[in-house]
């Protein structure tokens, strides 16, 4: 199961990267970025997964003794929460940039924004 998730995560990252590198349209690049991020999140969650573990919530199901052998690792989950929010922030800011760039040159082609050279 982790293997699948892991492959999915890596694949998303690579697909995202491919999008970032190959697409000229800025919105597409940001879409690539989103995918990249999602892939990352999948990876993080997968790292915390333990076969057969339950969610790290100590309700009656788990009981407060011997928890360690039953739950999945909560740390990556805590990290990924942060990562997701950061991802949103970055995406939003990038989109704002995209808008402004479009306003400036009436173009979304990233190769039109090459004024500063060398």
């Amino acid at each position, binding site marked *: 199961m982790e293997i699948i998730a892991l492959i999915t995560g890596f694949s998303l990252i690579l697909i995202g990267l491919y999008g970032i590198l190959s697409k000229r349209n800025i919105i597409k690049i940001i879409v690539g970025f989103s995918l990249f991020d999602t892939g990352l999140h999948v*990876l993080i969650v997968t790292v915390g997964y333990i076969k057969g573990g339950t969610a790290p919530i100590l309700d009656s199901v788990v009981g407060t003794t011997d928890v360690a052998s039953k739950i999945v690792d909560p740390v990556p989950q805590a990290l990924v929460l942060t990562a997701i929010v950061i991802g949103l922030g970055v995406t939003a800011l990038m989109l704002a940039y995209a808008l402004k760039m479009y306003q400036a040159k009436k173009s979304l082609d990233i190769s039109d924004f090459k004024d*500063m050279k060398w």
Partner: protein
Amino acid sequence: MNLISPIYIVAVSLGIAFFMGLLGNKAQRSSYLILLAALLFNTFVSLQWVFGLGSGLVEAMQVYTAGFKPPFSINLLMGLNESVITALINIVGVLGAIYMMSSLKKNGTGSQVVFLILFMSLNVIVLSRDLFNIFVFLEVGSIALAGLIILQKGTNAISAGFKYMLATGIISGILLIGIIFIYRFTGSLNIDSIITANPILKQGAFVSAFLIIIAIVLELKSFPANGWGLDVYEASHPGIGAILSAASATATYFVLYKIVDIAGSQLNYYISIIGVISFVGSNLLALKQENSKRLLGYSSIGQIGLLMIILGFKDILGENTTYVAFGILVSHYLAKAGLFWLSGIVKQKNIKGWAVIRKKPYFLFLMGTFIFALIGFPPFPSFFAKWTLVMDLVNTGNISWVVAILFGSMMEAVYMIRWFGYAIKGENEDIKDFKIDIYKIIPVGIFAVALYVVGYFVAPHTEVGTAINFIPLYFVAAIFILDFLPVIIKNTLAIVGMILYFYNIYPDLDNMRLIFEAIFMVGGILTLIAGYAYKGKRPGFYPVALLMYAGLTAIIEAQTTLQFFFGWEVMTAGSYFLIIRGKRSMPHGLSYMLFSIGGAYALLTGLGMAHVGHASFSMEILNGISYLPYLAYGLLIVGFLSKTAALGLHIWLPGAHGEAESDVSPMVSAILLKAGVFGIVLTLIGMGASNNQYSELAYALGWLGAITALAGNLMAVFQEDAKRLLAYSSIGQLGYIVLGLAMMTHLGWLGGFSYVINHFLYKAVLFLTIGAVVMRVGTHNMYQMGGLIKRMPLAFIAVMIGIIALSGVPPLSGFAGKWLFYNAILEKGWYFQGAIMFFSGGIAFMYLWRLIHTVFLGQLKDNHRNVKEISIWFLIPIYTLLAGIMVYSMKPQWVLQPLGNMIAKWFPEGQLQWVGETAISQYGQWAGSLVAITIMGSFIIVLVLLMLSTRKAHKVKQFDITYSGERPERPETTHVAYNVFEGLYKAMWPATIPLVEAWWNKITEILHNIADVTRRIYSSNGQVYVAHIVLFIIVSYLVIIGG
């Protein structure tokens, strides 16, 4: 003692930031004040920790989140390093906010919030010991920066910001992958526990550590994956550039410093390699850069590269790591921020446009301070840091690293000095003044002053830095402050200062040093007297002239190699400023500086090699270098030869000396060149003097000297410019000196030293006189002068005696040197060198005749009919020096006997025998006084005869000559002066092709072409930049792990 916990930096900043959100956009003014208050608070907190920890009164403090111990919670550590780094960051915060006042106010509370949060985040990434936390706050920081970039209006800023976001997005993605996998493989996110638990990481963990470190390295904008960073530097507000370069890079570098050990020490070497590629690469590419902010960007990246090298070598540098890194870092920090801020004040995109800064000399001073601090001149901290770095690297056998580092530094010096040259002397037709916002000056001024202060306090931390004598520099500073006074006061002060200093210093010196010190100081005083001829304030002249003399005396007094090098660089800086004062001297000043810096680096390496195997840095270590002695001595010699302008390293001299001001030329020619000779003397003594251990080196040096003599004189013959003629002549004369010293025999040294003294005397006379004449007639071109003997007979007499002395015609002092030389040559068996010398002597005669003839004899030009005799203030030193020449000529034994005794210390064999006034060598004898008396006697007899037979001679008019049956009326057509030696030129033109210059030009061109081609990788396309980043990771991976 309880200090304010660093957590309050975060809490207060955030609280205030959130509170400012409440204020809304209308209250920018008050919110700006609040912002300042918050930043000041941060600065206060970190500074109190600096003082607390620095004085040892308090212990480093750990802050635990929610009171849980790490690794279970995130902890912040406030140690000494952290306190210093955060203090640096927060100071930039305060000053940056002041600098950007109008921009921050205009853009409203939002921008102020972003500004505050940026600095909060930089503090946290320095303090935090948790990888993921560092990641979060790095993101905070980069988002905040992305927000601040767009404070600058225009498409460029927007597209730069977007590229920045793309790049940092990918980088932080890679960082996050690394972090999450290192958690997977080590079970911790805490830096300390990862380091302690896993000294050597296994495969997967190592790859993750690699990813983390490479991501941070990329955040530091490592070359070549740094196009995005350059675009940001170029496009954003200069205030942001300063923050990026000074604060953000500092913080990120500290992160690298913290986490580098998570990969054990396995990555250190590669970090150094990446660093050196960055350093050399971006400095090389900057050669072609003309946009000032982008140029600063290149330089920032280069400096960070240098810091990475230091980090990678921390095991080798040991306890010096912090010192070296701090020295480089703090110089970079202060200077780069200062320059960025300055670029916002000057508001010139192109570096050539910076000429406007001339309108405000104090800004020029600030700019000079920053630039010289960047390229590592004393008294700035980078000088001491670079010194220590090179010493330690050489000491551990990393010569190739030293070479790479110095090459990079050299490139940096090239474009920095060129930039400064454009600012101070670039030729621009109309220079507009520029307006300054007062508040923008404050930060720049503070940082410039800070550079001096930090340098002063850093110096004693080197093992030998405490011994540095700052007294001359204090004097220079005082004169600098008094620069508003008129020349007459400053000149008197300077002369009195030098007299007092010389009086105090001379009892402590041995004979050899005394000779040079006397040349420097007495020569300095005499040439300064000529300064009275100038009217007005002559702004800037006295500080830089005295700076040069301070450096000169420092190299004489030096007890340690550091002091020596310190003095050497001070002297170089001073002389550069002196030289560049001349009209049209910008390209020459540049090449002077570059050769000097190149030479200084050779010297530095050589001194480093001398240090190997010794604990001390005493000058004694030059004696008997044991580590690669040929290379070491060779480097030292090359270093010194760059100052004596040996053939190949000479191309700076003619222009530099020729274009300098009238009283500066003698300073830099008669006096300054002797510093190089002094160095060579020291090196040769070190090489074991008479035991002739490194005779191959000496042999090569001898040939170099001979060829230099020939080439210098030959070039002088074909000059039309009087001062250049003298300048080339100096090259030739220094060639004689070098040849004499290289012979490594008693007679050779005696000849060399006699030349040292002589050259000082007559070259000072000639340069002073010709300089004074130039002041009167307003041209350097000899063919535009002529017949001046009628207007300035005293100058003529001076030049006549000067050229007789120079040409070596008996009975004047020059002959002493010649006579000693040929005896030495016969003794040594260097016949061909001797023949070349003699031939050069013949050539020397040609240019000397030309000098005196075309300037003073021949036809007086109409526009010079009313010129006055040269200034009395020039005549005083000139005639004092002439008196010296005459004494030396009449009583050569007064000089040569003590010199011989002195040299006997190193060369006891083959001394001259003195019988009365006759010097007897193995090959012949020479009675200087008697010869002089004989010649004078016959001269007087003949003169009396002539006077008797022509007592009724009457003066005829200028054109009263027999000229093909006509009477000429125009002096221009009658004065044979232009291209006089046409015949010789036709025969010898192949020898005058400036091959050396062509060679250096070719090298420059190749470097520029490389830079120009390579920098095309920065296509300005965001995607390409991302590709660079990923490629960088892949290549590093292949090299480090795959390969």
